[in-house]
């Protein structure tokens, strides 16, 4: 049986891989193991470039995300048998999971932690793609699909967050959907559509339930198909190439099975094992039943939206929930175009200069953000000092322009000092903003106590425990 391969390895240098490949195709035809391998080959070509097998090129993050999606579908379908999607019954059906249903708590834990981990893994996957320059040419479209998938993972997590109908769920969703109120013109309508009325109530639960179990998963699974297919169209994951190397489409190949499939299997099994143990040991939180009359103090968004909530503490809502997220979204979609240089591919942080600049940018972004948060908390009060001006200017445009200016200026200084190329400079700016966002998220999670005032993490933890009781 002769198989057509793309790219065809040059005969002279591919004798060993060639032989391997022949064996692999024999295996496909003859043994049960081969049938399994063939299944994996629906996603992969029969042979892959040997250089792309290096674990530290991709860290298997995309594969992990897929494993998590499968785990989430599995545990989610199980939960559907136990969950009752009504405001009266939802909370009791979740407490029943913790008592009457055998392994109920375990399945809920698995679902919750897989969903949370999916956010982390998908973001890391995105960063891997950025920092190894894997967005050129045919991967351009896949970058956008990937961003939409990230949005879907976040939306799935968020809609699932409401379903237990406890205090944290109710108020986190109230806060997050109230943010829509600040979107000009269509905001109120969007908010009412999402809530099914003026307030978060029983209809909101129905809407979130349908979004969570039908709409978002179907969209996610449908979009995963082109996401994988476009990787194959681009001839597999990016092949490492330094700036001084010429692009070579004819890299030495090895058979996908067993070389790639075994590695993927190992990553998947380790991930699943770790998650199972974690789900056995750590219970998903459940607070008191939702009470619309009593906001907990502090009331916080889910952790993956904590950066956004922290922005809200400092910026006028129109900037925090509309202008800044919109700019970030546009910048993210356009990032590959900004980085169009394509000096290298598959090399972490482009070059040694890129690594150095990235480190400095991360430090600068993080420390400036910490400084700005402290200053805004204890020193600055632009709204009062300039009280004759509208707050949209004093707490919105003014701080935004100042920060954009600082970010832009520092990027220029960094570029001049390190002599980075275009790719390194854009990457440094990206890293600086990323560090700022991560710091905001960490502050929101660990350093915001009662009344959203700054506090030490141990005090925040104690306050949260008190609310739990």
């Amino acid at each position, binding site marked *: 049986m002769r198989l057509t391969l793309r790219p065809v390895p040059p005969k002279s240098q591919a004798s060993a891989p060639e032989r391997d490949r022949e064996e692999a195709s024999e295996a496909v035809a003859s043994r049960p193991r081969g049938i399994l391998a063939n299944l994996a080959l629906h996603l992969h070509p029969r042979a892959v470039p040997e250089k792309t097998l290096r674990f530290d090129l991709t860290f298997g993050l995309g594969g992990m995300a897929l494993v998590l999606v499968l785990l989430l579908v599995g545990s989610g379908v199980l939960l559907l048998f136990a969950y009752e999607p009504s405001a009266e019954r939802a909370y009791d059906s979740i407490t029943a999971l913790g008592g009457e249903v055998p392994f109920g708590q375990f399945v809920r834990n698995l679902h919750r932690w897989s969903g949370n981990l999916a956010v982390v893994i998908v973001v890391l996957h995105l960063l891997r793609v950025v920092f190894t320059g894997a967005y050129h040419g045919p991967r351009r479209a896949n970058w956008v699909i990937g961003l939409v998938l990230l949005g879907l993972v976040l939306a799935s997590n968020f809609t699932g967050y409401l379903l237990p109908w406890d205090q944290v769920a109710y*108020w986190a969703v*109230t*806060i997050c*959907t*109230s*943010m829509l*109120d600040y979107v000009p013109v269509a905001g109120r*309508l969007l908010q*009412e*559509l999402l*809530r*099914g*009325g*003026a*307030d978060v*109530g029983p*209809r909101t639960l129905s809407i979130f339930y349908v979004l969570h179990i039908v709409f978002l998963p179907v969209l996610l699974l449908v979009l995963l198909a082109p996401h994988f297919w476009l990787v194959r169209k681009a001839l597999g994951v990016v092949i490492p190439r330094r700036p001084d190397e010429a692009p070579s489409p004819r890299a030495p190949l090895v058979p996908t099975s067993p070389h790639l499939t075994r590695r993927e299997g190992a990553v998947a099994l380790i991930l699943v094992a770790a998650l199972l143990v974690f789900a056995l040991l750590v219970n998903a939180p459940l607070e008191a039943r939702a009470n*619309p*009359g*009593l*906001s*907990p*103090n*502090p*009331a916080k968004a889910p952790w993956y939206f904590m950066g956004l909530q922290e922005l*809200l*503490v400092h910026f*006028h*809502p129109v900037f925090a929930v509309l202008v800044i997220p919109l700019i970030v979204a546009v910048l993210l979609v356009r990032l590959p175009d900004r980085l169009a240089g394509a000096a290298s591919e598959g090399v972490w942080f482009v070059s040694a200069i890129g690594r150095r600049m990235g480190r400095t940018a991360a430090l600068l972004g993080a420390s400036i953000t910490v400084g700005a948060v402290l200053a805004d908390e204890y020193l600055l009060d632009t*709204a009062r000092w300039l009280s004759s001006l509208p*707050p949209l200017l004093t*707490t919105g445009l003014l701080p935004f322009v100042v920060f954009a200016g600082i970010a832009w200026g520092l990027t220029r200084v960094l570029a001049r000092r390190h002599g980075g190329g275009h790719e390194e400079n854009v990457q440094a700016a990206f890293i600086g903003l990323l560090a700022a966002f991560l710091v905001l998220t960490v502050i929101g999670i660990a350093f915001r106590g*009662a*009344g*959203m*005032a700054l506090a030490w993490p141990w005090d925040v933890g104690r306050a949260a425990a008190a609310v739990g009781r």
Partner: protein
Amino acid sequence: MKSPPAVTAVSRRFTLRMVWKALSWTVLAELVGVTGLFLWPRKAKAPEGGYGGIITAGPADSFEPGQVTAFAKGQFYLVRLADGGFLALSRRCTHLGCTVPWDEKGRRFACPCHASAFDVTGAVLSAPAPRPLDLYAIHVDGGVIKVDTSTPVMRERFEPGQVVRL
């Protein structure tokens, strides 16, 4: 000599195609319309004496000047100012919709979520809340205070005209 062009045949085909097109668009419009109307947010029917309807708070004399009374069912506070005037304040924070408790000791509404604070008239004492607490209309009916909770009234600042006097 050529036969005349088959005008009728073409025009029939054209007509049928147009009819098909029109029908397809109609079906699409119906689908969108039905789905849209089905999903359109609707006002929940207000329960008798509950939020969304008219709530009888009680005789005006039963509220002391300076007293702030919470009506959990109506989701509002009835405030009697020191000068004897009445205000019905929504309990929903204008920042992000948290429920604002009344702090009697500090004489202020303090939002637990993002630290906004409002004075007894609902005016903003500290940001991030962008505007005062919303108002509900008050009717005085034979010395009895009734609050209409169907539509919250937004306002940019506190003005004496908002206070209902007997």
